[in-house]
């Protein structure tokens, strides 16, 4: 079932694609703000520079947690692209995110603490919807296996449109875009200094950047899963979804964490659960 070639392909190609996506994102953002913007390769320059810098950390354990963060992020993505179990993928994703939180808590800094607490709130906010997405895919295709879902001829998105919308809502949190970039954010945005990444510097910050590229590619792969029945539509949908995220990022101010948690739970409870229930009753129960 597990396809090693795809996993290796992900491990090698995802940082390149993720970095380019981040660069294109910054360019489009700049154009939306009437600026010229940096080169498309700018994220690679940034990370290259971070690896040239001194490793200055408060607590040595932080480096260990940053390494664990990237290892589990790569594992998540590799398992996903290899066609593994969707539930295991989601649990690995949460685990990697928790290592980032632990890393932020390891430094005794108020800014880092606030960032870590907010990161936990974000995890709390998006987790129900992500699990519902996995359940929705199971109801639609009768399998938790990424391979089966991707190669299924069922138009998944037409069966679970509500869950797709809910997933797009939490995708904004995962991609660290405004209005939900409450724990840390991109570009020149600042958030209580720099939130969860405040106390990371140099190479360990570089690792966090690279794992975010992995995460971006993995999440876009997740979006593709809704459109697995037609690769062409799938790729188009992934591009449109990302452009939409950039637009949302540039047209919204940051919200408070209370709104973040309430609204994402409400969306999960309304569109997610209603969609699941409708699917359940229409198909006369899960076969």
């Amino acid at each position, binding site marked *: 079932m597990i396809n090693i070639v795809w996993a290796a392909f992900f491990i090698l190609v995802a940082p390149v694609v993720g970095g380019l996506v981040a660069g294109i994102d*910054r360019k489009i953002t*700049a154009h939306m*703000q*009437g*600026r*010229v*913007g*940096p*080169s498309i390769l*700018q994220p690679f*320059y*940034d990370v*290259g*520079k971070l*690896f*040239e*810098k*001194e*490793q*200055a950390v408060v607590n040595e354990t932080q480096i260990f947690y940053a390494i664990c963060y990237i290892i589990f992020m790569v594992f998540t993505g590799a398992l996903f692209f290899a066609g593994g179990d969707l539930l295991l993928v989601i649990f690995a994703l949460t685990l990697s995110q928790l290592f980032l939180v632990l890393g932020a808590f390891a430094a005794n800094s108020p800014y880092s603490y606030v960032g870590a607490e907010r990161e936990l709130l974000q995890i709390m906010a998006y987790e129900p919807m992500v699990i519902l997405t996995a359940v929705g895919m199971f109801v639609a295709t009768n399998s938790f296996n990424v391979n089966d879902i991707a190669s299924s001829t069922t138009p998944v998105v037409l069966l679970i449109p509500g869950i797709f919308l809910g997933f797009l809502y939490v995708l904004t949190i995962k991609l660290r875009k405004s209005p939900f970039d409450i724990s840390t954010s991109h*570009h*020149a945005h*600042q958030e209580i*200094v*720099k939130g969860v*990444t*405040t*106390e*990371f*510097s*140099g190479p360990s*910050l570089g690792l966090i950047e690279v794992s975010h590229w992995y995460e971006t590619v993995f999440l876009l792969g997740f979006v593709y899963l809704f459109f697995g029945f037609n690769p062409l539509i799938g790729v188009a949908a992934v591009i449109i979804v990302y452009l939409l995220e950039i637009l949302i990022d540039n047209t919204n101010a940051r919200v408070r964490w209370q709104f973040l948690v309430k609204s994402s739970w409400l969306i999960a409870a309304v569109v997610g659960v209603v969609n699941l229930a409708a699917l359940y009753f229409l198909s006369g129960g899960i076969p």
Partner: protein
Amino acid sequence: MTYLAKSPWIIHYDASSCNGCDIEILACLTPMYDVERFGIINTGNPKHADIFVVTGSINEQNREVIQNIYNQIPDPKAVVAVGICACSGGVFRECYNVAGGIDKLIPVDVYVPGCAARPESIIDGIVTAWGILEEKRIKKVSSPMVTDHGHKEHHRHAEGGAQ
């Protein structure tokens, strides 16, 4: 490789400046000058920064802050003093509460004079600073840890040892 020159992140600190130079620094970020096209980002976090941009002169309130920020920036790092007050103290040099330019406290690499310094000259100063950053990286210069204990002790003594 010379990635440092392609992605210089700055931290900006207003040390008793009149805000004239600060407005000019922020003008650099606007669509008119858009320093992000050079990869320059205003980070707001010393641990992520490469270039320390200071405006205004040193006084008793900010000396510790300047040292603290400088010490927290990981090597290689450069300091750009923006505006004549940061360079030498400017018209406030003779004031009883002003110690002088930033170089009285931390090593300054680039001086950008002007009152207020123009955005073009600020950008020019930062461009000069990334050359210095690159030089420091190749020579593996480790910046000194700046402390001010002597000054503080002297000060306490002058106040009659009051805590």
